[in-house]
């Protein structure tokens, strides 16, 4: 597709359940980022993938959060045993390469609500 695609656009689940969020980056982009946006706050960096390099996981808030990127393209962010504080919009972005002066292109996000 032309842009970054995220699914689902909305997810409502019960506390304690696991959720998977999907990101399909722009074709050919080697860098992929996950962010969390909470109400009234800026973007919180979660994880960064660049090509076949080991991901930068320094932003993951707890071991309940994990992400993978298969085949250097699609990425999945998994949250296990969800808590109410996990409620937020999860944004994915990609760029033609990591770091440097390339802008990131964002998807429309997944709005996650934990009941």
């Amino acid at each position: 597709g032309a842009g970054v695609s995220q699914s689902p656009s909305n997810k409502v689940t019960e506390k304690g359940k696991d959720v998977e969020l999907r990101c399909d980056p722009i074709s050919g982009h080697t860098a992929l980022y996950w962010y969390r946006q909470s109400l009234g706050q800026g973007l919180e960096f979660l994880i960064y993938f660049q090509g076949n390099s080991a991901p930068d996981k320094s932003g993951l808030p707890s071991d309940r959060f994990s992400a993978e990127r298969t085949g250097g393209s699609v990425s999945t962010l998994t949250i296990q045993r969800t808590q109410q504080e996990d409620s937020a919009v999860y944004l994915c972005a990609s760029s033609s390469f990591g770091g440097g002066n390339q802008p990131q292109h964002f998807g429309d996000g997944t709005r996650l609500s934990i009941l």
Partner: protein
Amino acid sequence: AQSVAQPEDQVNVAEGNPLTVKCTYSVSGNPYLFWYVQYPNRGLQFLLKYITGDNLVKGSYGFEAEFNKSQTSFHLKKPSALVSDSALYFCAVRSDQTGANNLFFGTGTRLTVIP
């Protein structure tokens, strides 16, 4: 350490008047600076960036920003505001140093253009 400050949570301006959204930054090395705009229920859209060279950068939708190294600022400006400019604006910075992968975002400024 990298950080971005957007000192105003909210900016109101009358349609047709000039607008300014403020941003100051802190970064090791030289900065790469970005402005993004976010409309309701959408991801962030890239507006413009400063890498090097001319301190006045022109971007999408008539926006521009001025890099001021001595004041460590990168304020977003537009000569004549439109109602459709009403949105949430984010400033972001990345260091030019090798290994600096992440963009650091401010907490955002909500711009309201009053008809």
